């Protein structure tokens, strides 16, 4: 895996990597993916599902309710005058 590819993957994954990390992870991913090439031989068809068992949709009545106290939730985050504080967006 070349430097350009690992740098692109890290950017998509929102990770800053040092040069040493970049080199090390590129080598690790190369080793791992080379060993995974055995998958190319697998006689798998086109049938698949995203879960190993059937999954059903579960709907509930659309009724207003409050499971948790908003004050309790706000205590989990940095707030200023009841607004959630965060980094700037622009």
């Amino acid at each position: 895996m070349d430097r350009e590819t690992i740098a692109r993957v890290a950017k998509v994954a929102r990770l800053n990597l040092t040069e040493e990390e970049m080199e090390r992870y590129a080598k690790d991913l190369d080793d791992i993916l080379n060993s995974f090439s055995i998958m190319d031989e697998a006689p798998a068809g086109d049938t698949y599902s995203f879960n190993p068992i059937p999954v059903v949709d579960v709907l509930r009545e659309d009724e207003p309710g409050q499971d948790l106290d908003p004050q309790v939730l706000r205590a989990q985050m940095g707030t200023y005058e009841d607004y959630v504080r965060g980094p700037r967006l622009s």
Partner: protein
Amino acid sequence: MSATYDLIRYAQSKHRAFTEIVDDIDDTKFHFSAKDNLCADGFQARAGSAVLDGYRPPFDATPVRRLKQAGGQLVGKTTMDEFGFGTFSTNSAHGVPLNPFDPERSCGGSSGGAGAAACLIPGHIALGVSTGGSISGPASFCGVVGLTPTYGRVSRYGLIDYGNSLDKVGLLSRSASLIAKHFRTIAGPDPKDPTSCAQPVLSGKGKMPGSLAVPKEALQNLDPSILTSFQDALSRFKEMGVEVREVSMPSLRYSLPAYYILATSEASTNLARYCGMRFGRREEELNQHFNDFFTGVRSESFGDEAKRRILLGTFCRMVGFRSRYYLKSLAVRQLLIEEYRRVFGDHDAVVTPTMPFVAPRFEEIGRMKPLEMYGADVLTVPPNLTGMPHISVPCAYVNGLPVGMQMVADHWKELDLLEAASAWERSFIYRFPEVSP
């Protein structure tokens, strides 16, 4: 203070089984612990990651809530690999648990603290979570019983996700009978987790398997002592009147890559939520741009293995590679389910050793490359990938260290596995380390 509380404190101080424990225990209740990726009111939930330092969920995960309602007291949160990323519990920001049989060795991962707690505290029931073997592995290395239910049998509401199509909440304890009792409590549909709502009702008694299949492909590359121990265990099963037959499951060879591709692909999207705002507090440097802040928090807080798996999963999902890796892995999972079903047509369960070796020393683990570590999951990954229920029981002791044996049944047949484990326990006496807190 009670003798049980002394043991809990001992398990925390000497074996680092717990990240947090209660100040006192109520002896009128039964005592259980939860792996630190299960949310519980009154405790931090950090899933072994520094990115979640300070996160205190104001609610209980469904399995925790159900055990409390059944008369249990949550006595502590157990140590684990960061987000479940590991086979030896060495990838944790909050302490590496030490094996009850030899503190220089691993407890297994990623529910390592749960394995240690279950071993060190008689009568204790530990909630663990398995994605690719994180209940069976610690059960094997710590010499306890570990049940991983069918995917969807136990609600994942309140579980900090690793891989949504793979995560299963289960139990570890010293005996199958204790697990059988509490498994009925935590199982069952929960509208808060739709994957739990398609399950058949859990009722009645399990059926003792009359026929066990041993896939010959699973007996390759094992430590010789494991193979000998396993063959002795099979002889014991035969003496119990159980038929044991060798079978071939050629698709097992694809399970490890398919699992790691699916697990890391799912993990790389799940972990996108950790941006330093929503879970775990980061209030410094808010004058940065969001993307810089977000990237900085993740880069500083995620551990080495978490970064490796995020990178691997991100790569496997990228345009141009998705079909070769991700979609192919989904198809391989289907292939394996069909292969298990073919075997279950003639046999009641598949049995293998749980791990290819006994608990390794930390110095040995330090020399392993990532790929070697992934390879240690080769026997636990197939049932996890396919969502099949499985149970690990101690089946031998090599130089004083426990060896685990894993039985796998078809979807929803956990009670048959518990029946088999109970029968096994009547024939084979488990050993536990002597502890004097």
